[in-house]
């Protein structure tokens, strides 16, 4: 701008100077008579040109300034729409703020709901944990990376880890200490397989060592699914079925033994009958012998069936007990007479005891006779030739009890099996070959003495030395007083 003003001033001065010089030249031309006409004309032309240029420049400058002013004015006139937008914006912002406020309220309500739900979930979780912790069966829950999520005390005990301080630890590390040969590694593998196969539930029997003893567990592994039906973990419940397995095995053994025991007399009956019908017994003596065998074997079959039924009846409480005052000494004498021939056959000496006068018990005569014959026949059965069986009876007047003991010099029972000898179908493993049996005789003894006569059975034994089986029954006087 400054340069423009300077140029403008200079041009004005030059124009004025040129005009003055032209007037001076014209005056001099007319006054002096000298020819100044050319100079005068040239100066005028210069002044005209510069003046014209100045007018043009001024015009352009004015136009430019006018444009700027118009632009400013235009900008100034535009202030009104900008204010409108601000208002609109303000309104929009207010509206949005209101929306946000509403949403905030909604979110707060949702947060509140969620907090309630979290509290409920935590309560449910605590309840679930309480249920799982109270279960006697070991329970393990792992996440999708096979890390422990939850376990109960039973699981901690079985796998030997602190169930409350082991969360999020790898299950393999916890339960088999990364020992792949461990019997527990099968359980880890089952958890992994179930998760990978995404099977809803897998069931397998697993043998695990617990307290140094092998235990069989029924392991049920179920996948845990999230909201998207993706497997997010696995839950395993292990149920100890060792006892069930033992009972099942005992039942199988029982069926096998009973089948054998029933078939053996049946085989004799059928063979002798066939021989008779085929005329193989030609003389009367042989025929008589055959009939006798058939009769004896039929009775044997009947006794066996009775034993099985008696056990069943006593267990179900259906047996009728006819109690009366009986002398144990007399019952022993009667049964000794029956067992004597069997003992003589095996060359076993039976040692009796002098009769006791006051050994009256209030009991079912047939049932106690069955007990005595079972104990006596067992003693003879498991005693080798040349051995002996001793029967002792005793009366404890203070306790008002009569006690019978039958001691043999037989094979004896191992200490770890002695507690099971009265179990149904149980047969001492080492003695199975010694003699046949169904495993019902001693169970029947226990059922009769303890279940129907309020008595007690007992046993002591030493392998290779012999065993003492016996029972105690309340004396008749005491039993009658109590009944009254």
């Amino acid at each position, binding site marked *: 701008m400054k340069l423009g003003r300077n140029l403008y001033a200079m041009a004005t001065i030059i124009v004025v100077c040129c005009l003055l010089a032209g007037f001076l030249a014209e005056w001099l031309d007319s006054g002096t008579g000298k020819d100044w006409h050319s100079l005068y004309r040239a100066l005028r032309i210069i002044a005209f040109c510069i003046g014209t240029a100045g007018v043009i420049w001024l015009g352009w400058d004015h136009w430019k300034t006018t444009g700027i002013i118009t632009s400013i004015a235009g900008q100034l006139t535009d202030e009104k729409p900008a204010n409108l937008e601000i208002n609109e914006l303000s309104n929009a912002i207010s509206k949005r703020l209101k929306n946000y406020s509403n949403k905030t309220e909604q979110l707060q309500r949702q947060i509140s709901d969620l907090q309630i739900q979290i509290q409920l979930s935590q309560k449910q979780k605590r309840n679930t944990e309480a249920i799982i912790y109270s279960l006697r069966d070991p329970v393990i829950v792992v996440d999708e990376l096979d890390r422990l999520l939850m376990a109960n005390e039973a699981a901690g005990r079985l796998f030997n880890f602190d169930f409350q301080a082991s969360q999020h630890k790898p299950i393999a590390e916890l339960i088999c200490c990364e020992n792949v040969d461990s019997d527990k590694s099968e359980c880890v593998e089952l958890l992994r397989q179930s998760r990978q196969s995404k099977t809803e539930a897998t069931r397998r029997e697993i043998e695990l060592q617990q307290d140094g003893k092998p235990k069989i567990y029924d392991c049920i592994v179920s996948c845990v699914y999230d909201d998207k039906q993706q497997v997010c973990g696995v839950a395993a419940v292990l149920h100890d079925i060792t006892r069930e397995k033992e009972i099942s095995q005992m039942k199988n053994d029982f069926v*096998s033994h009973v*089948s*054998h025991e029933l*078939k*053996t007399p*049946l*085989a*004799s*009956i*059928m*063979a*002798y009958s*066939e*021989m008779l019908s*085929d005329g*193989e*017994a030609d003389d009367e003596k*042989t025929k008589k012998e055959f009939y006798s*065998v058939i009769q004896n*074997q039929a009775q044997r079959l009947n006794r066996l069936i009775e034993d099985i039924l008696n056990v069943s009846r006593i267990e179900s409480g259906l047996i009728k007990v006819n109690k009366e005052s009986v002398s144990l000494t007399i019952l022993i004498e009667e049964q000794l007479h029956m067992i004597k021939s069997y003992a003589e056959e095996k060359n076993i000496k039976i040692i009796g005891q002098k009769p006791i006068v006051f050994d009256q018990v209030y009991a079912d005569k047939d049932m106690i006779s069955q007990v005595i014959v079972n104990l006596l026949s067992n003693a003879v059965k498991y005693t080798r030739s040349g051995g002996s069986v001793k029967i002792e009876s005793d009366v404890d007047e203070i306790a008002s009890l009569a006690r019978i003991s039958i001691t043999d010099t037989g094979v004896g029972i191992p200490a770890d099996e002695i507690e099971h000898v009265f179990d149904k179908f149980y047969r001492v493993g080492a003695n199975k*070959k*010694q*003699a*046949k049996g169904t495993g019902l005789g001693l169970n029947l003894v226990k059922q009769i003495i303890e279940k129907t006569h309020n008595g007690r059975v007992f046993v002591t034994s030493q392998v290779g030395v012999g065993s003492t089986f016996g029972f105690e029954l309340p004396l008749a006087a005491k039993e009658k007083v109590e009944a009254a």
Partner: protein
Amino acid sequence: MTKKILVADDEVHIIHVVAIKFRNNGYEVISADNGAEAYELACKEKPDIIVTDYQMPVMTGLELVEKLRENDQTKDIPVILLTARSFAISKEQQETLQISGCLSKPFSPKELLGNVEDILYSQVGN
């Protein structure tokens, strides 16, 4: 020459009836009431055939056959097993131990005699 049959069973009545059946049909019968005694008798008497019960005290029928097969003197003696248990022995075991036949109890003495004669007769034929 009279054929000799060894009958092993802990049931004296079974031994008795089987022995009568065999003797009535011209065979010589020797008997044992457990597996161990039967093995000793088999070594000593070299019977032509053995009829044994499966379940016996001291040594079972199956253990008796196993022992017989281990001994060069008795390994070729044909054996018929009597059993009151249908699942007592598998086909594979029967083949491995070269058990000539199995009869379930209760059995017919006539059928047993037939089986014994079939085995003895086929041996003579061979």
